[in-house]
């Protein structure tokens, strides 16, 4: 459950990774902007680069979900409940003609089990950039353009199969990314701010205040999160949508999730306090607040970014774990966690294995984010 708490891994974020000792000998590099250096360093982590691209792709898909998804996630076809994935054929008798084949099922009278038979005759043409189901992009721009799909709404088009209500898994996975990739960000951001501010104050002012904050952190980290989730999940107002509920909980959790980062920031500040440019700023009588934001934060902004990148996969996985316990998002909201809830059954593994595709989506993005985060952190402090 720890995974939910943003920055739970912040302890592992390490500064000072010099860029091979040439920089230490070179004046010119000191002139080069910090960001340029980070970029240079980052480029060396090939897998991180790849990860970055994957993550980018995910967010783009999420942003234009309506376009990438063949149909809306609520669209269902009652005759294709638990329909297995269709294979996408590109050629037919020699020439390029993307299509899928129609299929139909026999239901066993006793076990109610469906056996699907592909009908070679029924050829369903698949078109790219075609005009299908209309939608409002971001609730603003009316459009009906879809990347891939079949123009005929009656015909089955289930690249990744259909779920228990005959809804297209592929489309649902795409729409899920909208929630799964964003819902935790609020919490992450919040605990980020809290972590920096509180940690900063603690590190800058020190003394009894610092001591108090340390106690507070000690208390907060010793409270297991599972009970909190259970308690919070139960007390929300009835008329809240599942999304609001989940958001509320993540926010509240972020109120205790900042401790990890706060510790890092604090120690960072303690060391920074001694450094010349801060002293200088002090002597010039720069007010605390401005000092934090103009002088100190930039000096380690880079790890904060890395930390956030590493907090996101935690949040994605947290969402699935909570859905498993029935505490996370709930239908009709569609998220990867909600989709995986369907797969927690032996019968699914045995009979409808394609329902596991959301897991693949998760694994890929979590890996990508982790490598991205690692790369960023490696690049974080080139000096």
């Amino acid at each position, binding site marked *: 459950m720890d995974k939910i708490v943003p920055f739970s891994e912040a302890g592992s974020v390490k500064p000072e990774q010099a860029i091979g000792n040439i920089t230490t000998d070179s004046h010119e590099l000191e002139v080069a902007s910090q960001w340029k250096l980070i970029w240079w360093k980052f480029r060396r982590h090939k897998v991180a680069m790849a990860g970055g691209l994957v993550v980018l792709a995910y967010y783009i898909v999420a942003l234009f979900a309506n376009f990438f998804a063949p149909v809306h996630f609520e669209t269902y076809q009652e005759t294709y409940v638990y329909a297995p994935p269709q294979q996408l054929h590109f050629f037919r008798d020699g020439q390029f003609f993307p299509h899928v084949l129609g299929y139909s099922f026999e239901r066993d009278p006793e076990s109610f089990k469906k056996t699907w038979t592909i009908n070679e005759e029924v050829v369903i043409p698949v078109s790219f950039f075609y005009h299908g189901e209309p939608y409002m992009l971001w609730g603003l721009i009316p459009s009906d353009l879809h990347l891939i799909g079949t123009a005929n709404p009656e015909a089955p088009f289930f690249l990744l199969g259909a779920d228990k209500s005959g809804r297209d898994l592929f489309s649902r996975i795409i729409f899920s990314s909208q929630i799964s990739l964003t819902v935790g960000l609020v919490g992450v951001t919040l605990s980020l701010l809290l972590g920096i501010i509180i940690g900063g104050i603690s590190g800058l002012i020190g003394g009894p205040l610092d001591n108090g904050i340390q*106690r507070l952190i000690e208390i907060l980290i010793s409270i297991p999160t*599972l009970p909190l989730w259970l308690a919070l999940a139960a007390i929300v107002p009835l008329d809240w949508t599942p999304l609001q509920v989940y958001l509320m909980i993540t926010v509240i959790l972020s109120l205790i999730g900042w401790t990890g980062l706060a510790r890092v920031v604090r120690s960072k500040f303690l060391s920074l306090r001694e450094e010349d440019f801060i002293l200088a700023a002090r002597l010039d009588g720069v007010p605390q607040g401005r000092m934090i934001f103009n002088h100190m934060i930039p000096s380690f902004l880079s790890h904060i970014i890395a930390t956030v990148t590493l907090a996101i996969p935690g949040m994605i996985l947290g969402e699935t774990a909570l859905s498993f316990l029935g505490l996370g998002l709930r239908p009709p909201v569609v998220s990867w966690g909600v989709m995986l809830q369907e797969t927690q059954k032996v019968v699914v593994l045995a009979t409808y294995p394609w329902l596991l595709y959301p897991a693949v989506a998760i694994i890929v993005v979590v890996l990508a984010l*982790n490598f991205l985060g690692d790369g960023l952190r490696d690049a974080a402090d080139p000096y």
Partner: protein
Amino acid sequence: MWKYILRRTLYMFFTVWVITLISFAIIQLPPGDYVTNLMNQMTRVSGVTLTPEYEAQLREQYGLNEPIYVQYFKWMSNIILKGKFGDSFVYRPPRDAVELIAERLPVTFTLSFFSLLLIWVIALPIGIYSAVRQYSVGDYIATFLGFIGLAVPNFLLALICMFITYKYFGQAMIGLFSADIVDAPWSWEKFVDLLQHLWIPVVVIGLGGTAGLIRTMRANLLDELKKPYVETARAKGLSELKLLFKYPVRHAMNPFVSTIGWILPGLVAGEVVVAIVLNLPTSGPVLYDALRNQDQFVAAGFILVLSVLTVIGTFLSDILLAVLDPRIRLE
């Protein structure tokens, strides 16, 4: 040093006290109480409902009709004076919360221990390797393998493992003991049996934990590797391996030491999901059930115990760190 320990101890007591407040509050947060749940449980299986009289009566019987602060006070005084954490409503005959928890702890510890072992065995070498050979193909492959475990939702991993054992080995690995031996007193056979069942949960929990450790180790080590003392040691003519382990690795270990204390509570909380899927008789599910059933003394007691474990753990690892790191010890 002693002054330091004394101060820390005082803080510790304060922290624990605050935590008792919090944990009791958490239990009271959700609407309804154990009785509401009991009825709901009946409704769920049977559709039968309780008459209000019986509820009132039950509440009285369980002392749930008193105001919360009274309940808290009673709870605390029982803990302090009698060492009783309050009886469970759910488990019958009524058992003291801590007994229940304690009962499950040996298995939990065994599980945690082996998982931890696996985590370290996998993570440390990978971490060290990928730091020393930064940006090499090996680095990428190693870290990739290390992260896989993190990326797969653990309940799914657990379910899949279980299903595979059923599908391909004919026997699903469920629980931690074979049915025939589960009630037997601890014996060598039982232990062996345990080991045979243990691997799935250990792998599932372990793989989840490696990534974090790899990352920490890698980062810390990268950090240490360019410290001047490494160069000094190299200039002495030390062999690379010897050098690596005597200096940078040794230094890089310190951050772990400071987290050892949290590992157990962390695992107990983290293991809940896996334990539920794999049906493990560990303490995680006890906590989960207690919370679901609003079995308040068990739940509160559990949160308290976990938190206290964490606090003590933190305390111990700070001391340990002080022992290991002269800089802290001597300044």
